[in-house]
């Protein structure tokens, strides 16, 4: 496995950590979700009582636990990258495994949250608040699932001692995972707290 610290100079404008392509994706995703949230706040001003009443039906406890779970998974991911740089593949795989477990926990909790919403009859078409809630959180969940697929690939590759896995690939995958965290850190306060 070729996972030694690359000679990449991150101070070079064309080589940010993880690569320029992943950072372009990160910026595009952050802008897209931000526009969605700004639209939500804009519509929320026009229907303030409806947005307030609807936001009170959300399960804040699940959202807080999910935030803790996702932040912890980000920490495990950063640690996995650290061990990858130190060429400690076993520990890097262990921490990638922990990241995957916490990512799956996030998915389970979010699915339970959706189950509660469906049970309560609060769907995408119920009102404007729920339209934004479902669209933004489901779009985020899709990103988490894509991130998990990438991490599972890395985990299997590390466990098999695959030669083709490079540090730059690992860092790009980690950057994608952290991006899911960044998006959630924007979604959580707006959807669950400010209405």
């Amino acid at each position, binding site marked *: 496995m070729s996972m030694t610290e690359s000679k990449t100079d991150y101070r*070079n*404008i064309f080589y*940010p*950590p993880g690569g320029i392509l992943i950072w372009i994706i990160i910026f595009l995703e952050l802008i897209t979700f*931000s526009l969605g949230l*700004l639209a939500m706040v804009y519509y929320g001003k026009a229907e303030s009582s409806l947005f307030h009443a609807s936001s009170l039906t959300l399960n804040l406890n699940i959202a807080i636990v999910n935030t803790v779970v996702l*932040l912890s998974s980000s920490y495990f991911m950063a640690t996995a990258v650290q061990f990858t740089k130190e060429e400690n593949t076993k520990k890097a795989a262990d921490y990638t495994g922990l990241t995957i477990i916490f990512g799956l926990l996030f998915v389970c909790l979010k699915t339970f949250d959706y189950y509660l919403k469906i049970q309560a009859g609060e769907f995408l078409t119920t009102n404007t608040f729920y339209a934004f809630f479902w669209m933004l959180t489901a779009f985020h969940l899709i990103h988490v699932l894509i991130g998990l697929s990438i991490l599972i690939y890395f985990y299997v590759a590390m466990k098999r001692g695959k030669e083709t896995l490079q540090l730059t690939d690992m860092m790009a995958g*980690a950057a994608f995972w952290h991006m899911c965290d960044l998006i959630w850190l*924007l979604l959580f*306060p707006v959807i669950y707290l400010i209405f």
Partner: protein
Amino acid sequence: MKNRIVLLLLLLFTLITAFVSGKQYALIVILLIADIKLFLVAFQFMELKKAHLFWRITLSLLIILVTMSLYILKN
């Protein structure tokens, strides 16, 4: 070690956010804390602190612009 401290700070800020929700000046506090958390994840976990100034400034401006716009639109 640094990553561990950052994680503890992130968890602490999450608890503070949940606690101040519904209180006076909650909006500005919640958005400020969200900003700090975004900066911590981007600069420490994503190692943006090692990147070229262009990336650091661009992401910082984007985060500040978004949260400021949210604040202005909400008020």
